[in-house]
């Protein structure tokens, strides 16, 4: 963490994990869904743009054989943003895709989430519904895939 990090920001592994989970929920949402979810926090707090939403590339890596040494697979578009609230708390985002609006919204949510008196509200109004929506979509994929499960059986050939 940078030395000037405000005291409210996550510093322990535990809160870093919680913050990662929160960010994963935001990343999984469509820009529209995130924008809709953000309505629950209106009016949005005053903030300044530390780093305006910027689209760039992250080179995705895989591992040889699945678990071996890393190699470069190909790039993905990513948009990042940093905002600062009036009390100095900074919120950051890195989200896949080119939506500047989504990156800005994710950074705002990240900043609000770090305020002790807001964490609960952000979790309840934004993170939980988005995570539930993503989990439901995953459950559908699993259930549809499960219907295509096959049991092959080998047959002994009737050799004379």
């Amino acid at each position, binding site marked *: 963490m940078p030395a000037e990090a405000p005291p409210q920001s996550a510093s322990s592994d535990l809160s870093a994990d919680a913050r990662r989970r929160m960010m994963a929920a935001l990343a999984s949402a469509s820009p529209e869904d995130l924008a809709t979810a953000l309505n629950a926090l209106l009016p949005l707090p005053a903030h300044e743009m530390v780093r305006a939403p910027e689209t760039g590339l992250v*080179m995705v890596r895989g591992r040889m054989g699945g678990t071996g040494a890393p190699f*470069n697979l190909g790039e993905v*578009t990513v948009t990042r943003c940093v905002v600062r609230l009036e009390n100095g708390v900074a919120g950051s985002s890195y989200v896949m895709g080119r939506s500047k609006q989504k990156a800005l919204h994710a950074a705002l949510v990240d900043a609000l989430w770090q305020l002790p008196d807001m964490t609960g509200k952000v979790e309840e109004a934004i993170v939980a519904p988005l995570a539930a929506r993503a989990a439901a979509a995953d459950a559908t994929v699993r259930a549809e895939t499960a*219907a*295509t499960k096959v049991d092959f059986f080998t047959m002994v050939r009737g050799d004379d």
Partner: protein
Amino acid sequence: MYVAVKGGEKAIRNAHRLMATKRRGDRSVPGLTLEQIAGQLAIAVARVMGEGSLYDEGLAALAIKQARGDLIEAVFLLRAYRTTLPRFGYSEPVDTGAMLVERRISATFKDLPGGQLLGPTFDYTHRLLDFKLAADGELDAPLTAEVTETAMPRVTDLLSGEGLIEEDVQPEETAAVGDLTREPLSFPAGRDLRLQNLARGDEGFLLALAYSTQRGYGRTHPFAGEIRYGAVEVEFFAEELGFAVPLGRINVTECQMVNQFKGSAKVPPQFTRGYGLVFGQVERKAMSMAMVDRSLRCEELGEERTAPAQDEEFVMSHSDNVQATGFVEHLKLPHYVDFQAELDLVRRMRGEWFDRQAADQAAASEAIGSGPTGTSEKEAAE
């Protein structure tokens, strides 16, 4: 040498305008939306993302629309676009073992934890044209079933221990990972660079190479140990935050080829492996990549290098369809000065050739003159 030409601006402008009209087609038919392309031509989109080496469905769909469905042209557009964006860095390696699996099959192990899941596949279809699809009729919703197992260990992880199947080499933490978008290709290339090259290589080229190994040009005895397709989480370590940020998920196909190997001076008999990993559901490419990866490991495994698919310089220098099409298609551009020079050269060579022919003929007839007929002529004269 290529010498530039000037002019033709108006014709070029008009040609591009005509192309835009032809691309649009019959205007009484609704234009394609990017959502339609991304949603209904998903495998074409995946191929363009993979060979364009840029995962972005919207951009790939736009590229396909702009290229009138010419996928190599679309790949070219995507590659050109990526050069306009800054690189934030490298992701953490994706964990395909934690994939949200939509399809997972093994041709070598019948019973595996998590089961064989056919998922959305063309396999076992009869390849008969479906005229109902042309009419775009009612569609049955997919069936669902209770999910009993969610863990999907990789097949290759199930058989570790006995040494029957080669295990992945664990990397040194500090080992640098080659990136051919950053430094030019040089040989010999490590497996990291080979896999990156294959991952963005042309599907048709890799398919043909993989096929050549099956037909005996560097045989590798492959089995499809496992093919899986689904979503994996991408994480990016952000320096300023001090932890790996989840960016979202991408769909990938992973192929583990398992190859019978009779051993060598260096390695005991065992099953060796080839690895394929590609964006989207592009199984043919993932399989071809795994087979070519394995055949390119010939040196490491002490095999004799005899076939094109074992020659990394041949494979890696010709796998990139943007490079290949650039060099082949540039032949369409004006080469007038070039050709004028060649024309002069050929004219001169022809002149010299005819002169030589004439000289040879003259020499021959002179020789004939002193030959047997000549003698008889002489005799006649006498």
